[in-house]
């Protein structure tokens, strides 16, 4: 892999794609065995829903409204969706959205493109044409072929509607709306079959494999190629899976999967409720919040996918992308009046890596002040997978909240006084040194060198590694041994929809070593996971691992850190 870096950079994404394809072919899964986990039933996230609609019906179809909020579990919404249902109000939102989409599918602007046949008489039912449309569309929406009964019922309902309303397209509209609110669409329903290669074990069936693959790598439902492969039984073989994985990892659409993973891992859903006091931070607003998320995702996708870079460099990279709006927050000129512009911070500039971007420092702050504690907690939990206990209920926060206290000008001074309280000291010693390293950035992400006219000191120590300033801090996180371990665990959980089990610790340790050996290349890690047997293995009754307790490979330092 190291040898492939240079051509990948030279030839850009295309060269990189070829390089990945070469690596993928013929690779053996010699990882330690696992017992797998249970099949999952995962509700589509809102971004997944929107992406599917765009893929199936085109980007000109508008998806109105917002959906029932997702739940985060073990650090990921992807895991939380396995525990989701649909509430009554949530179903109403799905129904309204489905009707809105269905009406667009059959409108004059879209019907000729989206409906592959023309009814003999548009005022009457046409079962043949309806069957053609519903079979094709249903297969894409349900991520498997419709059963005979499902198809027959859909066609009958569409025909009855067309007859009653005197409009063939009204029947199609009803059918589309119906499919979009059906559990088969809204939930990713996995099914298992016996693993013929391993007696007594089970694995996902071909269509479930296709879905798991597609959502993992592309953040959307399987395309026709993948569904065809499943139908032909190609996904029942290692070679067949490898072929599809290689196709998908080398596709530009891999960036969608990488972006979806990081959006989830970084907790960007939190921006929906993020508020800043406009009198203190007038530059922050909803448009900045949108751009801030996109900035980080572009930074990550450019580094990890386009340039096949080292994952750890997300903490130190000087290259990013800016809009004029973000330029005003960062006090950086942006020439393009609209859209995005590449920007590289000069050597020595305090901005480097995603930890210094608005998306991290603003998301993990209070509305009216920064919070070294929240930032420290977030860094440990998001990037190092270390669980920091919640504060006890009777903590007196008055001192840390009083930013105008004449005796304590800076957050460091206030927190220094606060942790003298014995019940607070333990956790604050874990969080605060980390968060204080980012105190050069205010609650909205703006740069500052002083607080209340006192200089901000950003030196500190994390897990035995010392740093002088925020740049030194980003390098320490870059080199933190737990960072790639956490990434491997998170990305596996993102793909499987569950926290890894104790049984999988050895397998994950193996993947961490492979990740390091590859130069911490995320596409290669995703390809390796997607090609593995463990990714599709389903536990048999009585052997399910304890999913409730997060056990992570290589987490020795976690216990140390959380003491």
């Amino acid at each position: 892999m190291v040898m492939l870096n240079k051509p990948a950079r030279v030839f850009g994404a295309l060269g990189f794609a070829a390089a990945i394809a070469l690596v993928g072919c013929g690779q053996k899964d010699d990882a330690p065995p696992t017992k797998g986990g249970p099949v999952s039933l995962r509700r589509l996230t809102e971004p997944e829903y929107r992406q599917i609609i765009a893929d199936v019906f085109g980007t000109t179809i508008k998806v109105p409204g917002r959906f029932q909020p997702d739940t985060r579990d073990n650090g990921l919404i992807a895991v939380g969706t396995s525990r989701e249902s649909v509430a009554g109000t949530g179903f109403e939102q799905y129904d309204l959205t489905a009707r809105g989409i269905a009406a667009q599918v059959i409108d004059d602007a879209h019907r000729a493109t989206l409906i592959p046949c023309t009814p003999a008489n548009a005022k009457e039912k046409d079962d043949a044409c309806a069957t053609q449309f519903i079979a094709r569309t249903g297969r894409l929406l349900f991520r498997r072929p419709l059963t005979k009964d499902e198809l027959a019922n859909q066609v009958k309902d569409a025909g009855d509607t067309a007859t009653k309303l005197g409009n063939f397209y009204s029947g199609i509209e009803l059918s589309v709306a119906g499919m979009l609110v059906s559990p088969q669409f809204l939930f990713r329903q996995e099914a298992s079959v016996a693993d013929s290669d391993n007696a007594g074990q089970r694995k996902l069936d071909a269509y479930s494999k296709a879905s798991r693959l597609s959502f993992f790598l592309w953040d959307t439902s399987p395309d026709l190629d993948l569904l065809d492969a499943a139908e032909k039984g190609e996904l029942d073989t290692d070679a067949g899976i490898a072929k599809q994985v290689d196709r998908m990892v080398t596709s530009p659409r891999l960036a969608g999967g990488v972006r979806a993973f990081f959006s989830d891992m970084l907790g960007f859903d939190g921006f929906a409720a993020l508020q800043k006091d406009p009198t203190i931070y007038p530059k922050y607003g909803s448009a900045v919040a949108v751009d801030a998320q996109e900035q980080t995702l572009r930074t990550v996708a450019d580094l990890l996918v386009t340039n096949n870079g080292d994952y750890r460099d997300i903490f130190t990279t000087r290259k990013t992308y800016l809009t004029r709006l973000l330029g005003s927050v960062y006090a950086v000129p942006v020439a393009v009046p609209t859209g995005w512009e590449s920007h590289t911070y000069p050597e020595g500039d305090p901005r480097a890596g995603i930890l210094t971007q608005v998306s991290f420092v603003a998301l993990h702050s209070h509305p009216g002040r920064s919070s070294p504690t929240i930032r420290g907690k977030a860094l440990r939990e998001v990037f190092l997978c270390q669980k920091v206990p919640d504060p006890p209920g009777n903590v007196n926060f008055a001192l840390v909240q009083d930013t105008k206290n004449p005796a304590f000008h800076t957050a460091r001074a206030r927190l220094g006084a606060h942790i003298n309280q014995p019940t607070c000291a333990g956790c604050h010693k874990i969080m605060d040194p980390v968060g204080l390293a980012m105190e050069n950035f205010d609650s909205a992400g703006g740069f500052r060198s002083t607080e209340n006219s006192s200089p901000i000191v950003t030196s500190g120590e994390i897990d035995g590694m010392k740093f002088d300033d925020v740049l030194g801090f980003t390098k320490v996180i870059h080199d933190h041994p737990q960072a790639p371990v956490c990434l491997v665990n998170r990305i596996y959980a993102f793909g499987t929809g569950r926290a890894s089990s104790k049984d999988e610790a050895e397998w994950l340790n193996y993947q961490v070593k492979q990740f390091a050996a590859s130069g911490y290349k995320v596409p290669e890690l995703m390809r390796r996971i997607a090609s593995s047997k463990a990714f599709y293995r389903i536990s048999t009754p009585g052997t399910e691992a304890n999913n409730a307790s997060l056990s992570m490979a290589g987490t020795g330092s976690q216990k140390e850190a959380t003491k």
Partner: protein
Amino acid sequence: MTRLHSLTRPLGLAAGLALMTAAGHASASETRGYVVSWFGVSTYYGGESDCPDGLNPMSTEFYKRELLRLGYPEAEATKLLKDFPGNPGKPDGEYIKIMGTRGDKKTNVYAHPESSYDPGLHEVKGKLAYGFNLDGKTDSPISFTDPDTGEKGIKNQYYRTLGCIRSFRAPPPAHPTLAQAQWDVLRDEMPAWLIEISGMTDPKNSDNVTVTITKATDHASRDATGAIRADMSFMVDPDPRTQNVLHGKIKDGVLTTEPADIRIVADPFLIPEFHWTKAQLKLKVGEDGSLKGILGGYHDWYALYWSYAESGWVEEHSASVDMPALYYSLKRNADAYPDATGQNTAISTAYEVEAVPAFVMRKDDKNDKKVSDAGKAAQPQQRVEATMGGWLRKLGW
């Protein structure tokens, strides 16, 4: 391109300031960029003493006066104004048509104000106003005194005309209604106005600075408080109509410029184009990174009249500006550039100007490539500040 200045991130600590000063002054001079965040006619508010003859009537009042003068009975005049402001072309807007020809009952009074008599405008008779001594005379009977500095000989006949119209009056910090309403529209609708100050060796005192006033190709945007967003990037519009280069100095934190022509393309909602002669700037260079002060100069008085009259009845009724009265007052108070008949063609004016830091960028004419060196130039200062903590720690702070 103009870089942002360091004072947007002031250090209060003496040691820090000393270090910043040393670092900042290592280079001979700097250029700072700004985007105009407020622009409106300067109408000093000093209370009742400004207008001892009283304020001018509201439009309902002078419309009724005119209806009566035209011979409408009291009851009919009242009936005509019953649904004021009414709708043009509708029966209840009949008074609009009458007012539009109130001079000779056939001519558009807004386009031809001399078809009307001079109703007389109550004018400012107070002694205080902002502006400049544009003609160098301190003993002129039209002179005002600057309320802040006590400078005598201030010429601002535009204020004398407008200052007793209610929509031009507001106790600070409020802005007069009409100016605020106009700017609220313009700042969103009009490409931004840009200011650059170059040759600045010290933001408090610089003997020789160059000030450019240009227009951007981009619009200003607002921040979460509704104010013009600071630190945004703007590309200079190469339109030769808005390329002004002034020379001046900064003394005790106040920038003043030598008299020069200033021409700025604006917006028909306000005025299609400003063109001042003998214009000057007096702007306080704020420690928060802002500029705030006055632009003043002589301006063609009829162009100013037409900037109100072009909308006819709309601005007359909504801002209570009696257009014929305004016309005659401006003509009467014009104080410079007489024509062959002796009638002055220009009037002394003053406008409030405020600006916030911005990146001002230009295209490289040779390569058509956007230049961004100024923005990069801003970043060494960030580096100074970022490492400040380390230095101070080493010094034992």
